[in-house]
């Protein structure tokens, strides 16, 4: 098995090394934030989810055991679960509601949501069930392999492929207006 590029840093964080903590944050924060924003469709909530994720890391780093899944895989799993928790509290969202919310929440700090394309995709993602959304984002947005994404979600590769296929089908329908002319 290939060595975990983050393993040594996590061990140092467990021993209270601040420089190692900063390195881990620099390495993973942007990716986690982008993914959480797309999962939640809300910048502020995504930041809270990422903060919670790192807080769990700081609290449990001393008990970190190398072996098993890579550190990054476990970190993404924690982040996805933090997003699930928030989505569960929020309840389900229909596509119409999602479009409305996307229109109403441009957020000056997050100008990307102002673009029509980004907004339409966010609305379509928001209307997906959370697990399909996570599968789509990990594989087609983050560009991870099915096996890696399945490990993050804690499911089999077959279940992952099924989620992806259903997610893509739903997105194809809701984003039909974006097809090539």
């Amino acid at each position, binding site marked *: 098995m290939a060595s975990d590029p983050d393993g040594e840093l996590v061990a140092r*964080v467990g021993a*209270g090394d*601040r420089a190692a*903590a*900063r390195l881990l*944050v*620099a390495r993973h*924060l*942007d990716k986690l*934030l*982008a993914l959480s*924003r*797309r999962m939640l469709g809300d*910048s502020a909530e995504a*930041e809270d989810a*990422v*903060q919670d994720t*790192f*807080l769990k890391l*700081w*609290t449990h780093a*001393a008990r970190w055991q190398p072996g098993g899944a890579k550190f990054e895989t476990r970190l993404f799993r924690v982040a996805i679960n933090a997003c699930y928790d928030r989505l569960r509290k929020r309840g389900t969202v229909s596509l119409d509601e999602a479009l409305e919310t996307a229109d109403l929440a441009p957020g000056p*700090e*997050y*100008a*990307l949501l102002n*673009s029509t*394309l*980004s907004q339409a*995709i966010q609305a379509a993602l928001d209307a997906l069930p959370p697990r399909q959304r996570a599968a*789509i*984002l990990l594989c*087609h*947005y*983050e*560009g991870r392999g099915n096996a890696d994404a399945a490990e993050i979600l804690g499911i089999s590769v077959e279940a992952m492929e099924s989620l992806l296929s259903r997610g*893509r089908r739903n*997105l*194809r*329908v809701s*984003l*039909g207006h*974006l*097809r*090539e002319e």
Partner: protein
Amino acid sequence: MSGEELSDHRLIALLRHVETQDRSETTDSAAALSARVIADFDAVSRRAWLARSKTFVSRLVDATWPGAPVWKPAAALGLSLLIGLGVGALLPVAAAPDDSSVASDASPGIDFGGDLR
């Protein structure tokens, strides 16, 4: 596939495009979030240090006075300190010993080699 749907290829291209846009956006909020996350690390480290110190003290107490609450050995230590200081302050200082009666390891300062020159 219906004519109203977009192809998988187009869908994936759209998602990758949006991801590239998202990643190219270096927002101030990411820097602020990073600072918050590191502040959390400092807070957790402080709590861990306090917890370790508490454990150390309780183990020390347990080793010196097994089963006693912390205040008992602390009180015993404080009392013995007070007694020690009191005795030290009240008792007359003993006369300094006569240095001449004490055998010394130091060199007597005599140049034995002088006669040889």
